[in-house]
């Protein structure tokens, strides 16, 4: 009864993916280079700086990737359950603040990170529960919370938690509660990066190897089928928001406890990273491993972009456009895929028909 399969398509599949990624990066670079040339900049130097400029400071690059990966997970886990968590930004702010306070009071980094995660999770719970049980649109409530939290935290830092010595900064995370750096010879790496990798692995395990992960994915794909199987899609969507919020909160905590050691009074150290996470989540196809890779790549472009601005006097807008072009190109693989499978099928049919008829 089995329709015969043409051999070794799996091998071809992997080759295809490799071709896809190389192809899209190449295309993105060509377009970005053309834009630079059109505007009268040296395209080769611009591209070089955009892609490799960030590598001058690999530690900073990877640390940024660590925060972004967390906010990306905060978006992608609820999305798998069918909920849009736009609230990663606010969850991250609150996580950062909670981590700061916990660090000050407990003097322990683990406690601080946990506190950050729990604060984010609490926010996720509020948004998720309002959505599931009161039919409040999660996007609206999240945006309002993001805004409110921004000002609440700015207020808290400026009015209460400021550092008397440097008033635009908050009180500092005590030495004993800071996550430091690892050194290899002359190179250093903030601990938060390996910590991020571990957390991504946890997210992967959670989604693909646990009951809860299965239920999250099932509810997202088909609430009807989930209900039939005895899964409560509403409850599951709330859990997914709690987990998402937790990761965003941890993102804020990693920032404060593991990198800046304080919060500045305009939140510049965190501002926008929650939203960036959304793009990174999509680029990583909502898969934790993809998210980890995308977060590194994204940081590379951002830092490369600022390097280009600095050295070549390219306006910030142009630098951002170029990063945008490359990101769009990377999301084109679906198009390449169709093309490749078309060519592949042509070829297989040519071979297959003769062999089998």
């Amino acid at each position, binding site marked *: 009864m089995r*329709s015969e399969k*043409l051999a070794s398509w799996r091998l071809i599949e992997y080759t295809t993916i490799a071709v896809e990624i190389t192809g899209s990066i190449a295309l993105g670079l060509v377009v970005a280079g053309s834009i630079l040339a059109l505007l009268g900049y040296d395209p080769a130097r611009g591209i070089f700086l955009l892609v490799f400029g960030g590598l001058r400071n690999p530690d900073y690059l990877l640390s940024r990737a660590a925060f972004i990966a967390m906010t990306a997970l905060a978006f992608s886990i609820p999305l798998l359950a069918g909920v849009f968590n736009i609230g990663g930004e606010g969850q991250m702010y609150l996580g950062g603040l909670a981590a700061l306070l916990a660090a000050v009071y407990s003097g322990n980094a683990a406690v601080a990170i946990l506190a950050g995660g729990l604060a984010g999770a609490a926010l996720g719970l509020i948004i998720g529960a309002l959505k599931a049980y009161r039919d409040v649109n999660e996007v609206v409530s999240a945006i309002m919370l993001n805004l409110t939290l921004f000002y609440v935290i700015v207020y808290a830092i400026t009015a209460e938690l400021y550092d008397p010595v440097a008033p635009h900064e908050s009180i500092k995370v005590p030495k004993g509660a800071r996550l430091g750096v690892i050194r290899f010879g002359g190179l250093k790496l903030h601990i938060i990066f390996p910590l991020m990798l571990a957390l991504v692995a946890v997210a992967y395990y959670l989604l693909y*190897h646990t009951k809860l992960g299965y239920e999250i994915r099932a509810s997202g794909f088909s609430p009807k089928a989930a209900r*039939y199987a*005895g899964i409560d899609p509403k409850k599951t969507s709330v859990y997914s928001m709690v987990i998402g919020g937790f990761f965003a909160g941890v993102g804020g905590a990693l920032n404060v406890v593991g990198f800046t050691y304080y919060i500045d009074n305009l939140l510049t150290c965190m501002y926008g990273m929650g939203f960036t996470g959304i793009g990174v989540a999509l680029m990583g196809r909502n898969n934790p491993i993809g998210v980890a890779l995308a977060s590194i790549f994204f940081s590379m472009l951002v830092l490369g972009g600022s390097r280009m601005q600095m050295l070549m006097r390219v306006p910030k807008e142009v630098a951002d456009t170029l990063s945008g072009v490359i990101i769009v190109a990377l999301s084109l693989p679906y198009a390449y895929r169709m093309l490749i499978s078309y060519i592949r*099928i042509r070829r297989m*049919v040519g071979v297959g028909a003769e062999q089998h008829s």
Partner: protein
Amino acid sequence: MGGSQPAVEMRGITKVYPDGVVALRDVDFTVRKGEVHGLLGENGAGKTTLMRILYGEIEPSRGEIWIFGRRVKFRGPWDAIRQGVYMVYQQFSLVPAFTVLENLILASSSMGRAKLQDVRRKAEKIEREIGLEVPLNARVEELSVGVQQKAEILKALMSEAKILVLDEPTSVLTPIEVRELMKLLSRLREMGITIIFITHKLREAKEITDRITVLRRGRVVKVVETRDVSQEELAKMMVGREITFDITKKAAKAGAPLLAVKDLWVRDDRGLMAVKGVSFELRAREILSIVGVAGNGQRELVEAIVGIRPVEKGEVVFSGESITQMPPSEVYRRGLVYIPDSRAVGLILDFNVTDNSILTRLKQFLSGGRILWSEARRYSSRIVKEFNVLVDSLRTPVRHLSGGNQQRLLVGREVASNPKVIIAAEPTHGLDVAATEYIRSLLLKLRDEGKAVLLVSTDLDEVFQLSDRMAVIYEGQIMATGRPEDFTAEELGLLMGGVKCEAKS
């Protein structure tokens, strides 16, 4: 052939899906103008694939298509529709919240008030001409499946379809609706419309078609004039070997009650009472059928029994214990399982075969919150083997399986768990002849082993073939219960329509 051009000519069609499955191999398919052409074949033979290619929904990997003598290359269904080809799927393409008329306007893609009247006038004219009765102002979601199908056909005629493709149109219909559809199709044929008709019911194929093409494993095995072949011969062509239809129901003595439903009241999704005081008892070694026109509370009844839907009032007792409002997963674990009538409910189409194999039995594959994937795979491959699910790999998303193979996986998963009571809603929905016989004899075998089956089916052949007792449901109430030999088909029809006849015990 009379010299005139064939309506459809597909030549040398080969289709390889992106994951490497060869669904069609060098298929030649010709449909004459004005005939009803049957397309038959086992589950996974490639029928739907061939028609989706004709409809421009997917591209053939190789081959040519000619419509009325003109070479065509459709870029998508809209292109096909423009050239007079229209395909009616099982999942209709109507917007449920719109009225029929609004759907027609949507399809006519014309704007403005003046057009609205045009569309209405044209629709009414077509309805008059072919005696089609579809309430234009009713919202689609309020119509029965049969009427929705008519609306879909009306939509096809509005777009001046000359070739109409129907993929298993009868599998969701009641016998009366099937008869009406057959009449409608004859009328369309008289009007010169060419019809391609996919079905697994050989009797229907025999009745309505002029010629039949039989596919097997992606190849054409035979093209025949319908009057020259018997149903048995058709079955043999499809499967490639003689198949025997010997479902014999041995007399059985019903045992102890396994499932009792007492004065059950249940609301539907809109909050209206859909089940109004239903009571019955199901005993070991018994098959009880719930018979009725779809939408008379059958779904709400069974969903309430297994705990998916809240119970308004009443009690459900399973093996002597009350399971009223128990979570479904607990109900399933105790050995009361449910095969829903929709594959989109029973399966998660974007999950792969292994994922789906544990959907209703997740707890069994857990060790402290962790899923034991290797055990899940073992269970999954057992189902695939035992129930002949045609699939390349357990990692294939279920969406890529043919309709019948999805059904095999669904039924297989529930039966493989060794349950005590099976609630089976349309269990042979979309299955080919052999698989249908297999599932039916399996249900009988389970009954003989001391289990019980609650069968919910609109297929009266199936009901008469399998049931020990039947209960007719109408608007949420049981109209009559009895043994199959107590009812004639006519009486059953009346009862299903809400007409009570006297003195039926």
